[in-house]
C-alpha cells in the first residue's frame, strides 16, 4: 500500500477506516482528548508503516488494528512515565467542544467493551491479544492472526484458552455477545 503518490489514496483509506479507528480507540481509553490524540497517532503510524501492509496477508482492517494496538500500548507505556506525550499531530487540538462531546458519547457507548477489556487484562499477553481482536474488535481469527503476525492455528488455540480462562472472571455473555455496532 502506498500513499505517497496521491493523497487521494490516503483520503480513501482514511474515510474507509476512520470509524473503525475511533471505535478501537474509544474502547480503550475513557478520556476524549486522549482519544483524539490516539486517533491521530494511529493514522500517522499507518502512514509511517503503510509499506508493511501486504494485501495477500490479510485484510486492511486487520493490518490497521495491528498498527492501532501498537500505538495504544506504546502510548500507555509512555503515559506511565509522563503525563502527556506529543505526537506529530495533537489530535486533541483538532477537536472543538462539539467534537469532544461526541467523543464522550462514544466513550460512554463503549463502556461495556472497556470493562470486558479490563477483565481480559488478567490473561497472558498472547491470549489476550487474540481474544481482544476477535471478541472486541470483531476480526476473524485469521485476521487477528495476521494482525499479530502469528499462525492462524496458534491464534485459534490461544483464543480457546482465553475463552476458557475468562469464564472464571466474567460470564461469557459479557464478552462474547456484546452489541458490536458503533455509534456512528
Amino acid at each position, binding site marked *: 500500500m502506498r500513499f*505517497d503518490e496521491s*493523497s487521494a489514496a490516503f483520503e480513501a483509506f482514511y474515510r474507509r477506516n476512520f470509524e473503525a479507528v475511533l471505535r478501537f480507540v474509544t474502547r480503550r481509553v475513557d478520556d476524549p482528548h486522549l482519544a483524539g490524540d490516539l486517533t*491521530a497517532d494511529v493514522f500517522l503510524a499507518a502512514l509511517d508503516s503503510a509499506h*508493511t501492509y501486504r494485501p*495477500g496477508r490479510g485484510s486492511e482492517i486487520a493490518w490497521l488494528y495491528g*498498527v492501532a494496538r501498537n500505538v495504544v500500548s506504546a502510548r500507555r507505556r509512555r503515559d506511565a512515565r509522563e503525563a502527556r506525550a506529543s505526537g506529530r499531530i495533537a489530535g486533541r487540538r483538532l477537536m472543538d467542544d462539539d467534537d469532544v462531546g461526541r467523543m464522550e458519547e462514544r466513550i460512554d457507548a463503549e463502556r461495556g467493551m472497556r470493562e470486558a477489556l479490563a477483565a481480559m487484562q488478567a490473561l497472558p499477553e498472547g491470549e489476550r491479544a487474540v481474544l481482544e481482536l476477535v471478541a472486541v474488535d470483531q476480526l476473524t481469527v485469521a485476521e487477528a492472526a495476521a494482525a499479530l*503476525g502469528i*499462525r492462524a492455528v496458534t491464534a485459534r488455540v490461544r483464543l480457546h484458552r482465553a475463552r476458557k480462562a475468562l469464564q472464571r472472571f466474567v460470564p461469557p455473555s459479557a464478552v462474547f455477545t456484546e452489541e458490536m455496532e458503533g455509534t456512528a
Partner: protein
Amino acid sequence: MSRFEERLLTALKEDLAARPAPVRARTRRVPRPVVAVTGAAAAATAGFLVYGGAGSPAFAVTTDPDGAVKVRIDEFRDPGALEGELAKAGIKAVVDYLPAGRICKSPRGETARGGGRLEVGVGGEGGGITFRVGKGQIARDHTLVLAVSRDADAPGKAPAATSLEIVKGAVTPCEPVAPPAAPPRGGDGAGGAQEREGDGPGTTEREDDDSGGRGPGIRQDTDGSGTQERTEDGTAPGGGPATRENRTGATVHSGS
C-alpha cells in the same frame, strides 16, 4: 465527529505532503531478508530473495551463523532459480515442480544415510514450505532432491504432495507418474489421485527418520489444508505481516 474527522484528515495530508519522497517511497521498501519471515531475524547472516511479478518473493535461501541453510518457498515456481541459490549456499539440489496429479517416480537414487533429520514445515498462512539443512548434513556427493506437486496456476497454494530427500551419488531425472491410488476416504472427492496425509495403507514409501539412524528422507503429503508431518518451529510467525519489528511499527516487509 465530522469536523474532527475533516481537520484530522487535513493535518494528515499535510504531514504526508511534507515527507521527503525518497525516504517513504524507496528506502523503506527495500525488503529485509526472509529471516524476518521465518522468525529467526537475529540469526541469519545472508539472505536472498527472488521476486516474481507481484513483487512477493517466490522463495528465500538464508544461511545461519551456524552454517545451517534455511529455505522458505512461498510460491512453487522457477525451480531453476532455487537450485541456483541453493548451489550458492553450498547445496547441490534438484528441484522439480509438477502438476498436482503427478509425482516423480521413485526411487530417484540411493538414499543417503545418517545425515540426520531435515526439519520441514508448512509455512505460515500461505501454502509454502520451509526446511532447514544443518551444516554438513548434505555431503559433497549428496544431492537434495525436492519434488513438489502443485497447481501451476496457483503457485502460492499449498502443494498436493511434497517429497524431500537426500540422494547419494547420481540422481535420476524426475519421471512424472501418477501417484499410487490413495485409500478411499469418505466425504472427500477432491483431487482423486492425490496423496493424502495419513497412516493408512497405500501411501508411498514414507521415510520415517524418527526411528533413528535411517536416512534423512522425508515424504510429506498434505491435503492442501496445511497438514504437516513436522514443523520447524510451531511458534514461528511464519510469514504474517507483523513480526517482532513491525509490532513496533518499524519496517519489515515491502508491500506492493
